[in-house]
């Protein structure tokens, strides 16, 4: 992600952007609709021993092996008791496809660029890093997720790393 884009995703060229929205706990997130490959119900997955805890497992997506990342763990929230209610949002980032496990899928929203604002400084630094910025919608706040940072390997969490 470029830093310019992270502060102002709609820098003047377009005034309306589309976001696929989802819920994690009481947080309301959006990712650029063009980055979303598909949305799936919970899939059976293969766990990966020694992997960082945010990696929930591997999914077979029509022959493509996709890593599933538990957004609750990524955001340092309490995990759900019943994982089978979780939804997969498969996002493309570069050559890779990664699935984000979220509580609930929302609508695709069109938001106006002038409602965008930088992330406030009082949000926990680790979480703040994952947010590109915030749209102030009428009833609630839409947090724009930085996919690159969300799926980047978490430093120091890989057990059994290569020597």
């Amino acid at each position, binding site marked *: 992600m470029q830093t310019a884009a992270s502060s102002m995703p709609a820098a003047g060229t377009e005034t309306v952007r589309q976001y696929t929205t989802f819920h994690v706990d009481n947080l309301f997130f959006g990712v650029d609709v063009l980055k979303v490959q598909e949305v799936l119900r919970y899939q*059976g*997955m*293969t*766990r*990966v*021993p*020694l*992997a*960082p805890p*945010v*990696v929930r*497992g*591997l*999914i*077979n997506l*029509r*022959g*493509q*092996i*996709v*890593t599933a*990342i538990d957004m609750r763990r990524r955001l340092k929230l309490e995990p759900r008791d019943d994982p089978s209610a979780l939804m997969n949002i498969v996002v493309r980032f570069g050559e*890779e496809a*990664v699935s984000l496990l979220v509580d609930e899928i929302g609508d695709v929203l069109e938001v106006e660029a002038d409602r965008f604002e930088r992330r406030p400084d009082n949000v926990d630094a680790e979480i703040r890093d994952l947010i590109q910025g915030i749209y102030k919608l009428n009833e609630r706040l839409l947090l724009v997720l930085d996919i690159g940072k969300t*799926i*980047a*390997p*978490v430093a120091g969490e*890989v*057990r*059994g*790393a*290569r*020597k």
Partner: protein
Amino acid sequence: MDDIVKEFVVESHENLNQLDQDLVALEKAPGSPELMARIFRAIHTIKGVAGFLSFSKLEAVSHSGESLLAKLRDRKLSVNAEIISALLATSDVIRQMLNAVESAGNDGENDYGELVERLEALADAEHEFQAPAVETAPCETVPAPEPAVILGAIHATASGVEVRAEARAAPEAARAKASQVHPSHPDAKAKSAAEETESARGADADSEHEHPNTAGAIDANIRVNVSLLDRLMNLVGELVLARNQILQFSARTHDAGFLSTVQRLNLITTELQEGIMKTRMQPIGNVWSKFPRLVRDLAMLCGKQVRIEMEGEETELDKTLIEAIRDPLTHIVRNAIDHGIERPAERLAASKPAQGCLFLRAFHESGQVNIEISDDGGGINLERVRAKALERGLITHDQSAQMSDNEILNLIFSPGFSTAPKVTNVSGRGVGMDVVKTNIEKIGGTVDVQSQSGRGTTLKVRIPLTLAIIPALVVTCDGDRYAIPQVSLIELVRLEGEEVGKRIETIHGAPVYRLRGHLLPLVYLRQVLNLGGDWNPAADCQAAHIVVLQVGERQFGLVVDEVNDTEEIVVKPLGKQLKGIAAFAGATIMGDGKVALILDALGIAQLSGVLAESHEAARADDRHEGRAGDSRQRLLLFQAAGFERLAMPLSLVARLEEFSDAQIEHAAGRRVVQYRGRILPLVSLEKILGDAGTQRAPGAQSVQVVVIGQGERAIGIEVDHILDIVEERINAPRMSERPGLLGSAILGQRITDFLDVRAVIGEAGHNWLARDKSETVERARVLLVEHEAFSRELVRSYLEMAGHQVTEAPGR
């Protein structure tokens, strides 16, 4: 970047690679007009396109190179090492500029005036040229200018434009050139135009006469993006899995139309898979093509004379493997020149020709690619290797005294080992043969060294054809399946019930197993993978499956919950969140659509520390085995037909299988099973040995089968129980009169009967001596001379199994 520029860069890189080879070849065969024409054409094309795309520096440099080449071609100059070096340097500079074009879009900031001057100085050294008689002769055979006069004229004007462009771009160089050139050639400009004409004619004639098929060849090939091929490969892998699932479904229906469609789908998929695999195959010559240049440069640097010879450049292997072996091979070649081949004076003193030879050979053998790199140098000095290994503390004095020459030789692959007395520019940069070995093993290959003092050294590298689809053993651990690539698999050991506690011993907490008398360090997969925290190996194991794995020359046992089956798997990479985990080499999709992780034997060994310091021990074991090897036999022990302890040579055994009763069918009145797409006849030993009374346990739902022979010749021998695989000396053998038995002998302090495998084959109704139509290997008639009847019979069964015709002679 524009497509046209991109294409220019790609094409020029290819041309330059060829150019390097041709220049080195030209040095050896200075008179060759074909080489000359090809070199000239390569530089000329680069110059022309560079001019067209306004890369003026690039154009200027290639122009100077071309002018020098023109003099060579016209025999105004003779080829010498200095000129070739300057031309190779030109090729390097052009490469640099192409890289700049690729990354920055222009031909770079560097000023290559020095090189241009060097080229021009060489071109002007004309008056020093004294043509030797031999070299002038071919001059006369250069054909006089003919039809392409018009083309030449057009070209002459074109070259005029180019000269002006150059003058704008590098006025200084041009002026310098002018001042140097004019005194000797008042008509320099006309001359250069004439040269252009001739080069154009040469190129033209070349394409018309020498390669009448060029147009066809171009039409028959297209460039394809590698990522597209990778994607196709993935899709085909997916298709193979879908096909497998459909095949499973089809077994349950009897719809003839559906079944025949499935059959066709099956065949097409297999062919498609093979076809796609082929698209990724590249000749190894792609890697080797860099070596003549490398060898030349290194040899000059080291003051040596080396010629390179190649055989089997067309041998193909997967593109990813081509990339992976590039560095190891380059390192081996560097080593051969730096350490292997001696200086000319030393070679002459050893009555060898002053010029050393580096020989590269590649060929396919049993599904693998073999690459041999041999030099005819001084060979590896064993005493120096020994001394160095002692000095570095890699071995102890006691060990060194016991090690065979071959073992000493293989010490060069130990980490931190380098015999070069001083660090040279070429080798000894801390990247040793151990890295070469690790890199080759990473792709499932092996490397071996042979050396003869004073005669030279040969390195043999064996690598698989492809990495994309590999055979693997599927195991289960804590409810999940894992795939273990077959290349690292040696054998499987199963322990049941109390045996688990008894036969797995511990040394200060470290589990070991006595495998044929040697201690095999064990690793519990559960523990390595951190599964099931409070799991206790001693208490919780009902049965232990030990998968014996090989990493380099060392072995260890991986204890898993269950061993499932072997399968062909499609290797897929892991996402970047998981790339760092050493225990996994990738992932794959199983027949049921679930994902399974692929275990990395080396990574697991490192993670568990199982091979940390057992290196010496493994060597000691090898040595032990080596000494006793001659009189020992590897034997399979089993129970059948009421015999408590039967034995047969393990080398005859292809596989051990278990079939459920439901799988057993009848064909022509025989018990058969479907096995790997063929009908496998089963032979009951009761018929051959006579029923000794006991039947197999009444509750048993399955039979144990020993499969011998391959393909059409395979036979399954039904046995009651597999006991063990042992490596023992056969003591006090006695022949037996009983049909089906060779005889008896004492084996590990117990009397053991030896099965007569030939009698089993006879029972199965096979004629082993009949030639298989597909067989290409020449079957030999063998005269077997052995005075001991028992051994004679045993050897005879080996030979006949291999399809040879045996005539016995008792000897003495």
